[in-house]
C-alpha cells in the first residue's frame, strides 16, 4: 500500500468513525439537559408525567451513551493510530483540552451511574435531581473541550514554528483560539436542539400510532418549545460563525458560499448547482453574504480568487451548507408554528400529516448535524491544521488501514442495529400506559 492509499483510507475511516460517533455524541450531550428540564418541571409542578418522562428518557439514554462511549474511545485512539504525525504536533500544543475532556467524561460517568441507580432512593426528589447536574455539566463540557481541539485545527495559535521546531508554546492561548467561542457555542446548542427534536419525534410518533395519552402530548409540547429556543440560538451562533470565518478562514466561507470574486455588496447564493464553473438555478439573496460576514450589507467579502488553487477546499461543501441551513431554519419555523398553534388551540397540529412532519424532525436534525460536521471538516481541507500541516502529511505510514476500515464498518453496523433493536424492545415491552398504571397502584390514588 502506497502512502497515498494510506491517506485515502485513513480519511475514509476517520470520516466513518466521526459520522457514526457524532450521532450518539450529539444525543449524549443534549439528552441529559432534556432529562433535567423534564424532571425539574415535574418536581416544580408536582406532575408525575414529567418525572416519568425523565425516567424513561434516562433509560433510553443509557443505551445511546454506551455506544457513544465506545465509539468515542475508538475515535480517541484512532486519532493517534491514523494521524500519528498530527497527534505528535497536537500533543505538544493542544493536549490540555483533550486531557480535560477525559476528566469531564469521568465526572459524567460517575454521576450517571449514581443517578441511574438512585431513582426513588431519596425521600426528597430534589436531591436526586441534584445528581443529574454533574451529568449534564460533564456531558456538555466534554463537547466544549473536544470542540476546542477542533477549533484549534481551524485556527491554530499559541506556538511558533521555527525551522520545524515548536517554540513559545502556550496551551491556554491555543485553547482560547478565535474559532473556539463560535464553534463551541454552535456545537453545544445544536446538540440540545437535535436532542429536543429527536425526543419530539418519538412523542409525535406515539401519538400517530394511536396513543392519545396526555403524557405524549406534554412530552411533545415540552420538546418542541425547547427545540424552538435552541434552534433560534443555533441560527444566531451560526451567524456569528459566518463572521468568524470571514475574518479568520475566508477561503472556507468563500468555498461554502461559492463566492468566487472579492466584491462589495456581496449576495448570498442559496442552492443551485455548479456547472463548468458556472452557478446555475441558484437563489441570490442581495447583500446576504456581506451581512453574514460583516453585519454590513455593503462591506467587501473576500472571494476564492485571492487564494492559491491548492489551498481551496472542495466546492461541494456548498451543498452541505445548504442542507444544514435549510433543515435548521425549517425546524425553527415548524416548531414556532407548532408552539404558536398549540397556544391558539388550532386543530391542525393534531392532524396526521402535521405529526408526520414532526416525526421527520428528529432524523432531519441528525442529518443537519452530519452535514454541518462534513462542512466543517471538508471545508478545512487541504489542511489538517490550517496553514501548518496538510492532511496528507499527517497520516500513518502503516499499510493495513483498508482492512481496519472493513473491521470498523462491521463494528458500527452491529452497534447501530443493536442500539436500535434494544431501544425498540425496551419501550415496547414496557409501554408508558402500563407504567403509569403500575405507578398508580404503587402510590395509591394520588397519581394523575
Amino acid at each position, binding site marked *: 500500500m502506497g502512502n497515498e492509499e494510506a491517506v485515502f483510507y485513513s480519511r475514509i475511516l476517520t470520516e466513518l468513525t466521526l459520522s457514526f460517533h457524532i450521532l450518539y455524541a450529539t444525543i449524549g450531550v443534549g439528552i441529559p439537559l432534556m432529562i433535567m428540564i423534564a424532571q425539574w418541571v415535574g418536581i416544580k409542578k408536582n406532575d408525575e408525567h414529567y418525572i416519568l418522562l425523565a425516567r424513561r428518557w434516562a433509560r433510553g439514554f443509557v443505551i445511546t451513551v454506551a455506544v457513544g462511549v465506545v465509539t468515542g474511545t475508538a475515535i480517541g485512539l484512532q486519532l493517534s493510530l491514523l494521524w500519528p504525525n498530527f497527534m505528535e504536533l497536537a500533543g505538544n500544543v493542544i493536549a490540555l483540552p483533550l486531557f480535560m475532556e477525559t476528566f469531564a467524561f469521568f465526572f459524567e460517568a460517575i454521576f450517571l451511574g449514581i443517578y441511574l441507580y438512585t431513582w426513588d432512593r431519596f425521600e426528597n426528589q430534589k436531591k436526586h435531581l441534584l445528581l443529574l447536574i454533574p451529568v449534564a455539566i460533564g456531558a456538555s463540557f466534554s463537547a466544549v473541550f473536544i470542540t476546542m481541539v477542533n477549533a484549534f485545527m481551524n485556527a491554530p495559535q499559541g506556538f511558533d514554528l521555527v525551522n520545524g521546531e515548536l517554540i513559545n508554546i502556550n496551551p491556554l492561548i491555543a485553547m482560547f483560539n478565535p474559532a473556539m*467561542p463560535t464553534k463551541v*457555542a454552535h456545537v453545544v446548542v445544536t446538540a440540545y436542539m437535535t436532542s429536543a427534536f429527536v425526543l419530539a419525534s418519538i412523542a409525535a410518533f406515539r401519538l400517530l400510532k394511536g396513543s392519545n395519552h396526555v403524557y405524549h402530548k406534554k412530552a411533545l409540547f415540552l420538546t418542541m418549545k425547547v427545540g424552538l*429556543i435552541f434552534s433560534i440560538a443555533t441560527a444566531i451562533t451560526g451567524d456569528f460563525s459566518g463572521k468568524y470565518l470571514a475574518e479568520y478562514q475566508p477561503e472556507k466561507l468563500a468555498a461554502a458560499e461559492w463566492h468566487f470574486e472579492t466584491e462589495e455588496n456581496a449576495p448570498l447564493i442559496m442552492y443551485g448547482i455548479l456547472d463548468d464553473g458556472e452557478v446555475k438555478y441558484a437563489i441570490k439573496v442581495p447583500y446576504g453574504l456581506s451581512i453574514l460576514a460583516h453585519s454590513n450589507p455593503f462591506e467587501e467579502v473576500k472571494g476564492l480568487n485571492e487564494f492559491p488553487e491548492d489551498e481551496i477546499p472542495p466546492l461541494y461543501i456548498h451543498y452541505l451548507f445548504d442542507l444544514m441551513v435549510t433543515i435548521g431554519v425549517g425546524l425553527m419555523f415548524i416548531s414556532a408554528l407548532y408552539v404558536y398553534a398549540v397556544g391558539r388551540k388550532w386543530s391542525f397540529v393534531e392532524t396526521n400529516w402535521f405529526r408526520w412532519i414532526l416525526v421527520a424532525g428528529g432524523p432531519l436534525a441528525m442529518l443537519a448535524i452530519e452535514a454541518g460536521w462534513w462542512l466543517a471538516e471538508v471545508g478545512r481541507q487541504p489542511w489538517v491544521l490550517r496553514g501548518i500541516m496538510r492532511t496528507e502529511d499527517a497520516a500513518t505510514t502503516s499499510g493495513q488501514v483498508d482492512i481496519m476500515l472493513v473491521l470498523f464498518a462491521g463494528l458500527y453496523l452491529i452497534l447501530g442495529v443493536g442500539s436500535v433493536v434494544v431501544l425498540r424492545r425496551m419501550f415496547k415491552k414496557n409501554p408508558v400506559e402500563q407504567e403509569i398504571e403500575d405507578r398508580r397502584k404503587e402510590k395509591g390514588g394520588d397519581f394523575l
Partner: protein
Amino acid sequence: MTDFLMFYAPFIVLIGSIIVAFWSATKDGPMRNKK
C-alpha cells in the same frame, strides 16, 4: 463589535438559551386546560 460577536456573544447566547429553555418548559398551560 465584530470581536464582541466572535468572542463573547456566543457564550451569552448559549447560556441565555439554556435559561430561557428552563423558563419556557414550565409554561405548559395548554396541556393542563385540556384535561
